[in-house]
């Protein structure tokens, strides 16, 4: 018993040290998952397909599969990252085909279409670029990448 308890004591101290270190690091860190800051979904449940190109006024998504109610969000492509939002369309859970998104303020370059969850107030796009990780309507991630496609502009 003595040895077991001594070991337990040593382990307890290690745990204490770990928890001290861990807690210190954790304090104030709201989103602990590094690059994945949205909702993780399987490729079987979350997909997006766009075959055509976008016009100045609209973009059509051929097929989208979402694990829940969602938003199709169109951004200007800012050097591979989502830039200013230029289009927004809500979709239901499951498969949606031929979804057309009205665009505004598109002039040149390419676009990024991402799928965001509608987890906040239903029908309201609760997402702020100022606090992306703290917003409820964050994007879906599949295979550790945001569920999104790049669409060329005509």
């Amino acid at each position, binding site marked *: *018993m*003595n040895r077991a*308890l001594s070991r*337990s*004591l040593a*382990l*307890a*101290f290690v*745990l*204490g040290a*770990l*928890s*001290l*270190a*861990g*807690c210190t*690091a*954790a*304090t*104030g*860190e*709201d*989103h*602990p*998952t*590094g690059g*994945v800051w*949205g*909702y*993780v*979904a*399987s490729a*079987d*449940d*979350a997909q997006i397909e766009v075959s055509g190109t976008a016009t100045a006024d609209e973009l059509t998504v051929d097929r989208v599969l979402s*694990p*829940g109610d969602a938003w199709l969000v169109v951004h200007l492509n800012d050097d591979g990252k989502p830039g200013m939002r230029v289009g927004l369309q809500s979709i239901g859970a499951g498969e949606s085909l031929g979804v057309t998104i009205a665009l505004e303020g598109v002039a040149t370059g390419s676009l990024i279409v991402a799928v965001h*969850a509608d987890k906040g107030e239903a029908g309201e796009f609760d997402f702020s670029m100022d606090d992306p990780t*703290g917003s*409820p309507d*964050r994007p*879906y991630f599949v295979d*550790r990448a945001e569920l999104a496609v790049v669409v060329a502009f005509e």
Partner: protein
Amino acid sequence: METTMTRNYTIAIEGMHCHACERLVTANLMEVPGITAVVADAAAGTAVITVEADPDLDSVASAIRAAGFEPSGGAATLKEAGPESVQPPLETPEPALPDAAGPEDADVCPTGTCPTVPPAPDPALMAASAAAATAHATFGIIGMTCSSCQAVIERTLARTPGVGSAVVNLAAETATVAYDPHTLTVDEIVAAIRGAGYDAVPHDEDAAPGTAGDAQREAQQAHIAKEKRLFVFSLALSVPLALLMIPSLMESVPLVVAEWLARTFGGAWDPMMVFKYIGFVLATPVQLIAGAQFYRGFWHALKRRTGNMDTLVAIGTSAAYLYSVAATFVPALAMEPVFFETSALLLTFVILGKLLEARAKGKTSDAIKKLMGLAPKTARAVRDGAEIDVPVADVIVGDTVVVRPGEKVPVDGAVTEGHSSVDESMLTGESIPVEKQPGDPVIGGTLNKLGSFRFRATRVGAETALAQIVKLVEEAQGSKAPVQRFADRISAVFVPVVIALAVITFLAWMFVVPRFVDPSFYLDVTPFIKALLAGTAVVVIACPCALGLATPTAIMVGTGKGAENGILIKSGEALETAYKIAAIVFDKTGTLTHGKPVVTDIELADGHDVDRVFMLAAALERGSEHPLAEAITARAKEKALHLPPVEGFAAIPGHGVEGTVDGMRVAFGNRRLMAREGIDLARFEDRISSLEAEGKTVMLVGVNGAKLAGIIAVADTLKADSAEAVAHLAKMGVEVYMITGDNRRTAEAIAAQAGIPADHVLAEVLPEHKADEVAALQARGLTVAMVGDGINDTPALAQADVGIAMGAGTDIAMETGGIVLMKNDLRDVVTAIELSRATIRKIHQNFFWALGYNSLGIPVAALGLLKPELAGAAMAMSSVSVVTSSLMLRRFRPGMTKGTTR
């Protein structure tokens, strides 16, 4: 000083069989006016009484008959037992250890014919029983965590109708309850304790040595085993929780789990929420299963409107846990962080602390375990003429038991056949084996070295010396020292004060601090979170469990250490008071001296030799019970002298004895006898006077009414260790006094040898005035210890702040003394005081440790600088450090070198 002359008489009494009979006769004779002291001897069939005035013989006979016995010859007749100058055999030591047993050993009569004897005169018990018919029971308590638990049980019992008093010992985990058996049963007491949220196991008071607490030990073992399982369970769940706090794991693990969940169950999973779910899944079993015991304790304490460690742990862990649950499942709080690891680790640390504490507490009772381990399991008893091995529990009083070399003596008894030497060091600490021959007492648990012998069992089961010693030590360890009251007082107010402090801390962090400090001080958490964590840490760090352990663990180790050194400390109070002793009063006879006169000097007249003089004197004194005569016959026996028959024997009161030995008329006695015989002592007068000046009793041997054959000087000699002990006590700053009924000249002679100054000699003190002398010293403001062995010392032992009884003394002296020295070695008085000082120092150190953690920890926690789980670890460590500090007392070594006796 007023001096009253006393005389000693021997009365022959029929029908006494045992100590119980002796005690009854003693008690009744003490009621007779004029009798100041009584020593009844069942073996001799006599009682020696000390009288100031000749008692009424009819009253003496009535007293004997009232006790259930008969004066020999149908009427009481008094035979003078000796001159006043000789200490009466009141202080003649009885056979050593079998009598060192304590009160109950005297109550069993080997013949079963003795009248029922009331228990030993314990003033406290007598007072209690006078108030109500009171029974006592001891219970093992399982599940106590701190002194607040102790207070809860004591309060619960105190409120139970029929309970007179209840003392709960946290370290020994026992409750000793005095109750009225007419209104309350043991089962009802157990139910009351269980109602308070703890388990209770009644001790079997009649069980064999050290087995009274077996059920408790089993229950405690089961409890510890359960706690161990809970600890492993909590640890297994807390380790992943703690690991999840490492940043890299904090990122990767929830992600991997979220991916797995998405693949397996479909849907979308937020890794941040998955992180919280993992925390919930891991922490909830810890909170609900491992933490259930704390909620139970909290609830029971709450029902009694009190608080304990369970209250603090339950509140502290629940605050962290419930907030985390809300942050996990209440959407509005979805973005708030969780603290599942705090509650789980806190509970794990608390359970670990309890386990370590249980282990350390177990070690504090090692001395008892060692003592219990001495008792052999079987005995070789002679039944129907055959030697058969029987369980030691089956040995009955009167059985003849055979002991072979290397075997342990199974029970107490008296040797009937054979010779051997027995190692009694395990009980007395005396390393030199003691020679045993027919008639000598043997003690159960001691080791037979050489030779085989048979003995008749006189005390078995719970009556053996070993069982009584175990009981005494257990009782002492279970008793509460006055210093404990300090801890109790603090603990009683601690929980409410701590909760109030925690609430104040919370409110201050929530509402006051944000007004005055920069938000960056919060390290990105909200004031609410900071307030919650600070309040929780305050609740946890402040638990008073270490404080509750400070005194009892030190007392347990101290009394156990005493037992190892042959010093039985009968209560925590005695141990504590011994620390303050400023004056110590030694009884002379049997304490500083051997208590048995021995021949010290022989002067021969021309033409005589030593053996011949002794032969003549011993032949005359052969049948005498006078202690001086015993010294002569003992010397003759030592020399193996043949003692011829005596013709015309006559005892001449106040003079001596005379008779015809080998055809010679021999007179043996004092100067007056020689004058009566017409023997001229002029030539020897100087020598006689010088011997008398040394405090010796001079006896003269006259032959044929014509000339002196020799002078024999007899004296009660100083024990070898007395002077050393006195010197050491003086060095320790203790005033040493000697008290005796002897005349001043004899007393001062002995005191001078012992190194006691003449002005510290209290001579010619009657037994009933010894207590007054002690009281006079106390009146000077001194804490006084009395060291004695006889019945006549009993009032003084009771009067003294600490009564120290010699183990070879009478049962009553040992019952009265708070400390019993089993070896009759006065150096143990020094050791007892040293041990007391070491124990009290340890208690003070423990208070420092316990209060240090709390006093330092509370402000640190209130300032938000201590994480709750670390507060939990600190709390566990405070208990462990206090118990470990007490265990350091096991390294205590007596300061005096014991030379060859150890």
